[in-house]
């Protein structure tokens, strides 16, 4: 690959859009359906230009019918297409939960394997825009508890493009969760249609004192916390999970066995969040390596508040992460 191509910068949104366009180009069975995804190009501009390029046959505007949108994808996938269906906000997953978790996730198993379900669901999660309690949630823990689904939550343009392509090409129902506060973030994005393999985490910073594990926007905040602490002489290793179901537990454990301390971070409500599963697995598999409890940073047990004054206290940030790291590190070795 030429250097200039490798250094091309795209925004998170553009990277998604380009990845999607490329899988649509390569496979005529890929179409996109959802509310305002066609003529409007998506309310977040996430599908901009695709209608002009692929036409209304492949960029399908639907009624406000989240259950039928997912069902449309399921039915089309069962008979051999490769649908991408969009739920405008991740909160709307709850409106379509039966079709997602009782149908899409289970069909292959219930049918004794006699089908594939190459369905991709795209959606927009996360808080930080004062969108209120029903437009700001991070609900991945519910989805990761459902066998049959895969879930990706990329934190940057490069991973988003690669995971979007991998998800659409994958033969299983996969949910691609964008973060609505990252849309403008730029990053280097190769032009070709590459995959970031599903289920692979990235070690985004190598360190020895503590393992920080995060995904989606919190991977950025975790990186910032690590940066901040470097000045204090604390050397963090940062892992961006990228895929949250399945979890790349090997990469996690390798790091934990080296650093012996862990701080998990997500935007979702702490109780019952993905951090719980990670903490449980880490202590199961690396019990003797741990010098301190696996710590979890997440949202308090409350809906997402509207007021920016509250929302900024609700969503974890680099400072809160750094504070937790300090606490985790200052815990004396068990004696």
């Amino acid at each position, binding site marked *: 690959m030429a250097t200039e191509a490798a250094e091309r910068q795209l925004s998170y949104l553009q990277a998604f859009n380009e990845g999607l366009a490329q899988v649509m180009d390569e496979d005529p069975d890929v*179409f996109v*359906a959802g509310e305002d995804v066609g003529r409007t190009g998506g309310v977040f501009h996430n599908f901009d230009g695709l209608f002009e390029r692929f036409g209304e*046959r492949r960029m*399908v505007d*639907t*009624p406000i*019918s*989240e*259950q*039928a*949108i*997912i*069902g*449309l*994808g*399921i*039915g*089309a*996938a*069962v*008979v*051999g*297409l490769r*649908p991408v269906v969009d739920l405008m906000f991740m909160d709307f997953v709850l409106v379509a939960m*039966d*079709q997602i978790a*009782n*149908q899409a996730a289970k*069909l*292959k*198993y*219930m*049918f*004794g*394997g*006699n*089908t*594939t*379900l190459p369905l991709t669901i795209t959606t927009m999660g996360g808080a930080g825009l004062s969108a209120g309690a029903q437009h700001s949630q991070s609900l991945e823990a519910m989805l990761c508890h459902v*066998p*049959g689904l*895969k879930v990706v939550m990329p934190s940057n343009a490069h991973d988003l493009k690669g995971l979007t392509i991998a998800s659409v090409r*994958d*033969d*299983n129902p996969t949910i691609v969760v964008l973060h609505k506060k990252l849309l403008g973030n730029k990053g280097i994005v190769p032009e070709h249609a590459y995959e970031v393999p599903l*289920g692979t985490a990235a070690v985004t910073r190598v360190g020895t004192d503590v393992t920080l594990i995060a995904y989606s926007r919190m991977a950025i905040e975790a990186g910032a916390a690590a940066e901040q602490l470097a000045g204090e002489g604390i050397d963090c290793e940062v892992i961006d999970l990228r895929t949250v179901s*399945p979890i790349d537990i090997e990469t996690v454990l390798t790091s934990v066995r080296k650093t012996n301390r862990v701080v998990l971070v997500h935007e979702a409500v702490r109780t019952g969040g993905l951090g719980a599963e990670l903490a449980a697995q880490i202590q199961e598999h690396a019990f003797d390596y741990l010098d301190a409890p696996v710590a979890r940073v997440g949202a308090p047990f409350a809906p997402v508040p509207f007021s920016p004054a509250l929302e900024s206290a609700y969503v974890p940030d680099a400072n809160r992460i750094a504070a937790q790291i300090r606490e985790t590190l200052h815990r004396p070795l068990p004696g």
Partner: protein
Amino acid sequence: MSPPSETVRDLHERMVRIRLFEEAAGRLFESNRIPGFIHLYVGQEAVAAGVCVALRPDDQISSTHRGHGHLVAKGGDLSRMMAELMGKATGYCNGKGGSMHICDLDLNMLGANGIVGGGVPIAVGAGFANKYRDNDTVSVAFFGDGTTNIGAFHEAANMAAALALPVLFVCENNEYAEYTARSRTMAIDDVVERAAAYGMPGMVVDGMDAVAVWEATTRALASIRSGTGPVFLEAKTYRYYNHHGIQTLGAKYRTDDEVERWRSRDAIEALEASMVAGGVATDAEIAAIRASVELEVDTAIRFAEESPLPLVEDLTDNVYTGAR
């Protein structure tokens, strides 16, 4: 549009196959040889047969908790069906699905469904794919009267209409949802009144008359294949057994009298009488068909009973395609 004799015989045989399969399944359930829940299709045979005889093999159907009849009518293999009901490895779903998830993708039967309304959007998705491929295949959603009260049905019906998809909505109105009479859950006389809400043509047919169902379906399919969008077909029918299990009479939610009235109009008996009267088949020919289907059902039972159980080692197979 009267059906050729061939078609009438086909309707009859499919109905008999459903009836005898279901009666056998009921007995096996009663004697605990079939585990779980069972929702028998007996009484409604004319609907599944009438619709499916009118379909082409490439047309898809999606089904319900009361799905055996649909699969039999689409050409399902009785042995693999019975094996599935018994939870055997040789069943349609390798024992993982059971009665409520029985399917045959090769026959374009996209599955029974345990969630009321769950299968309707799936049929619409198949219809979308047909239009996308421009192949003039039609998908059919079977569902009950009570199902038209649930959100997924509404969204799916409207979606099909809005996108002008080639989908036939077949409402099997047996006047009950479980133990609740339809009049207590909707304030309309006929379910077909709902079609207009979607701008869909609506048709009503006697669901105890297989030929009438076949004719109505044939007309509906012609309209759908012409590209004008979905059609809603209400078939008035009745289930002889209770919602679940094998009781018929003595229920408190409906009168024995009502049950007997519907049974006196039995679709199979009616068709047989008209076949004999019309010279389409003799009594002996009909008896021969029944005997041959009985044999087939016996074979299916034997196959199922002799089949191995699924292996515990395979418990987590087929959760995903490929490595997780």
